[in-house]
């Protein structure tokens, strides 16, 4: 609660709105105590006095009545009517919504049909019809405005109630033999009240505006009593000659409604967890680069070489070191596996290459990524864009989310081609169909005209691969491309990728959490843990004799076909949070071989021949292995 108010106050506009509203409400409350002139006493000799006239701070209206007094009394009336309308609408709407949501079934059906009918009316039209039946008058206008807002509340509250009505504590109350009324009042209502309050705060501005509108039309408050709307309505005939009689009440309505809206927005934002976590921030076209040190020299050759890459997430005061000095390289025709649990930083490493880490909050703070001789970190956006999809292409996990749902797959392929090559649409389409054939999609001509949701998961992933191949790239970065697929389809996709790299000399970086997949496809493998590489080497060697305890445990997670000589082991515990890394080995807390030395200082990645390990007590002595 305290945090909520802090957030609200940090939002200066919301605070300003709150102050304005408080000021107006207090003014309205103390109006009877103020030394004002009587609002309804006419003095036609004194009509249309201008603003700041003597004795009339805001002048007088067409009947010589004091504008200031009428304004404050009118504000009082408008606020009272608006608030009452909101309370009535909330009360009846909530009652209807709770009954519909709690009882469900036919009751729900009948009630919600009725609500839908009411919502089928253009909003103000229904209010007009109600006023027409009841006759003009402020109370009738209030009833009309409240009535047309009831469906809105009913629908909202029903939704929330349906969610609560099937929770355990409600079932428990039912089993305890409480009556429905008791359950609604003691179990449901307390949980619904916050929603009612929020819905009221977002609609009260509307209700004040609408009652003012009906009064403006002459259907609300009747003379001589005046709310802000009818003041404006009466002033309309003198708009041209004496505009101040219109401006004064109009500006007051504007202040009230704007204050309420500002405050309501602030409340909504403060309550929205997505906004707090930055989940509604727009990602930039390319990841932000804030390099601290110099560009390191590439540590090895290859078509793609990463050296000491550091990518972080900056969320508020926290810094998550998702990728912490990672060096990798891949040669043409080679397949490099990058393996690790969720959150190990393997995907962020992959996305950093083409600046695709969502930013904010992602920031690349150091290191070098070279495609051939071109440095990519800090490269201009146009350079990155030229390489994206043309020289370095991606295949993502879960193609249902990664393909555009509203474009035909053929068109999405055509776009991938035409972004980089000035060919005609027809030509690109022909090439798109060819690509679909290459990834062995049957009936490719027709398939090109279907939408992603009309395909199976395996077909969609093939489309994803076809898209990556569209411009015959040098490097393909595949980010868990088979995770969402079943095993047979997975095997087909893997052999497809394997063929393609042999045929075309593609370099593949294959991100996965599955050692089984690595064994089938990859020449070399790098194991990541908590943003760091803990082991690297040729796949066969690593699989046969893992050096890092983590690698050994990870391999033990893979089920084996046949006898099952080995126990399938889960690794107890979770990877550490990468915003509070202790010095030393990040795996120490879960490691069975942990010694005091493991957590006192940084441990280097020790290279020996083709292999490397970041461990003081490796399972396999790499230098001896290299010597042999």
């Amino acid at each position, binding site marked *: 609660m305290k945090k909520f108010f802090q957030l609200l106050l940090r939002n200066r506009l919301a605070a300003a709105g709150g102050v304005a509203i408080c000021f107006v409400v207090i003014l309205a409350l103390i109006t009877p105590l103020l030394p004002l002139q009587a609002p309804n006493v006419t003095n036609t000799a004194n009509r249309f006095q201008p603003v700041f006239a003597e004795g009339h701070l805001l002048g007088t209206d067409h009947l010589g009545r004091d504008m200031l007094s009428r304004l404050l009394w009118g504000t009082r009336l408008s606020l009272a009517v608006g608030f009452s309308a909101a309370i009535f609408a909330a009360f009846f709407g909530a009652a209807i919504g709770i009954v519909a949501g709690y009882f469900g079934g036919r009751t729900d059906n009948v009630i919600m049909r009725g609500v839908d009918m009411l919502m089928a009316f253009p909003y103000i039209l229904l209010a007009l019809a109600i006023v027409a039946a009841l006759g003009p008058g402020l109370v009738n206008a209030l009833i009309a405005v409240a009535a047309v807002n009831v469906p809105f509340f009913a629908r909202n509250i029903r939704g929330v109630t349906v969610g609560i009505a099937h929770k355990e504590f409600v079932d428990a109350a039912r089993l305890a033999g409480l009556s429905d009324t008791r359950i609604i009042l003691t179990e449901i209502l307390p949980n619904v009240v916050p929603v009612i309050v929020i819905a009221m705060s977002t609609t009260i501005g509307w209700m004040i505006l609408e009652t003012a509108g009906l009064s*403006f039309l002459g259907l609300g408050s009747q003379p001589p009593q005046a709310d802000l709307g009818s003041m404006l309505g009466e002033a309309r005939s003198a708009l041209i000659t004496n505009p101040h009689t219109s401006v004064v009440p109009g500006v007051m309505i504007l202040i009230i409604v704007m204050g309420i809206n500002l405050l309501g927005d602030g409340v909504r934002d403060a309550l929205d967890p997505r906004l707090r976590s930055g989940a509604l921030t*727009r990602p930039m076209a390319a990841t932000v680069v804030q390099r601290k040190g110099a560009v390191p020299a590439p540590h090895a050759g290859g078509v793609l070489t990463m050296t000491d890459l550091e990518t972080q997430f900056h969320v508020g005061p926290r810094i998550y070191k998702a990728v912490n000095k990672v060096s990798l390289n891949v040669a043409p025709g080679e397949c490099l596996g990058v393996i690790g649990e969720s959150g190990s930083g393997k995907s962020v490493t992959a996305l950093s290459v083409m600046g695709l880490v969502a930013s904010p909050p992602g920031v690349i703070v150091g290191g070098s990524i070279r495609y051939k001789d071109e440095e990519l970190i800090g490269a201009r956006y146009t350079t990155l864009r030229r390489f994206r*999809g043309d020289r370095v292409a991606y295949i993502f996990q879960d193609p249902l989310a990664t393909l555009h749902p509203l474009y035909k797959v053929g068109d999405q392929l055509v776009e991938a081609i035409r972004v980089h090559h000035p060919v005609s649409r027809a030509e690109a389409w022909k090439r798109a169909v060819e690509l679909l054939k290459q990834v062995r999609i049957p009936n490719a001509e027709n398939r090109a005209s279907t939408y992603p949701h009309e395909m199976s998961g395996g077909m969609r992933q093939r489309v994803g691969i076809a898209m990556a191949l569209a411009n015959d790239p040098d490097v393909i970065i595949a980010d868990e491309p088979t995770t969402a697929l079943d095993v047979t389809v997975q095997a087909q996709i893997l052999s497809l990728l394997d063929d393609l790299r042999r045929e075309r000399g593609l370099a593949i970086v294959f991100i996965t959490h599955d050692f089984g997949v690595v064994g089938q496809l990859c020449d070399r493998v790098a194991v990541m843990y908590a943003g760091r590489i803990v082991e690297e080497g040729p796949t066969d060697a690593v699989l046969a004799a893992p050096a890092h305890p983590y690698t050994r445990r990870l391999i033990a997670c893979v089920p084996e076909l046949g006898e099952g000589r080995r126990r399938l082991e889960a690794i107890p515990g979770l990877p550490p949070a990468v915003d509070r890394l202790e010095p030393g080995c990040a795996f120490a807390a879960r490691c069975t071989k942990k010694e005091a030395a493991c957590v006192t200082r940084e441990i280097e990645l020790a290279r020996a021949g083709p292999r490397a390990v970041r461990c003081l007590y490796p399972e396999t002595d790499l230098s001896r292995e290299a010597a042999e």
Partner: protein
Amino acid sequence: MTGYILKRLVSAIPVLLGITVIVFLIMAMIPGDPATAILGSYATPENVEKLNRDLGLDQPLVARYFIWLGNMLTGDFGRSFALNRPVIDEVLDRFSATLVLAGTAFILCAVFGIIAGVVSAARQYGFADKAITFAVLLGISVPSFFLGMMMILIFAVKLRWLPVSGMFAIYGGGDLPDLLNHLIMPALALAVVATGVVARLSRSAMLEVLRQDFIRTARAKGVGERDVVWRHALKAAMVSIIPVLGIQAGFVLSGAVYIEMVFQWPGVGRMLVDAILKRDILLVQGGVVFVAACYVLFNIAVDVAQSLLDPRIKT
């Protein structure tokens, strides 16, 4: 597609019937004797009785509803007492004027609202975003009738750029330029609130979409940022913007009543207010049913547009 439209039309029938029931029930709430209410307290008993018979008020409630409904289905909405002319003729005349006003305002709010929302989202937290967000806040807070009055004061009275009110000039008017000249201010004043709502929703819909995986895919393909925003993201965001456009159409259609009063626009809203003040019940009844029915049909068009955009909707 034709099948889908037919299906939607059929499903609208219960809604339309529901609307007539609601309007009928509301009108049946009128306290006292409607005939006396219509004719005034000085009416002779014969006239009251005749009117009661004409209105069918001597029948039971349910019978009255079906008589009324049956008449409406044959195009007979009854006769307006105040105007002494068939309700349907008056409603059609006035509705065409409202349609011009509300239709223009609707197009304005859709075009400018979406553009503002997209720009705002694309430049999130930048100057353009802040300026648009503030303008939107102002737009949705200002009462349209007050805005209209201020526009008259500035653009018609002070600057003399545009006519004060009406739909056509009284002398020598009547052509299209004259209509447009008279239309600018009321259409803008009517569009402002709806534009704000559309802009606000478009912004949040765009922000939601811009974080989606398929946007990252588009970027990974090398698609330029302008295309990413205006084609990939906007197309997906339209799925949530279109329903809001439907709701806003209802707002401009019924909110036109204020603007018609301020600008003396001869539309159906002003007709309704006059009819309410004169207790011309049949005119109110007919007008409300007619406009609500048009709105229901418009919403079917919105659903059809949605199904054209989104292939995932089963047609």
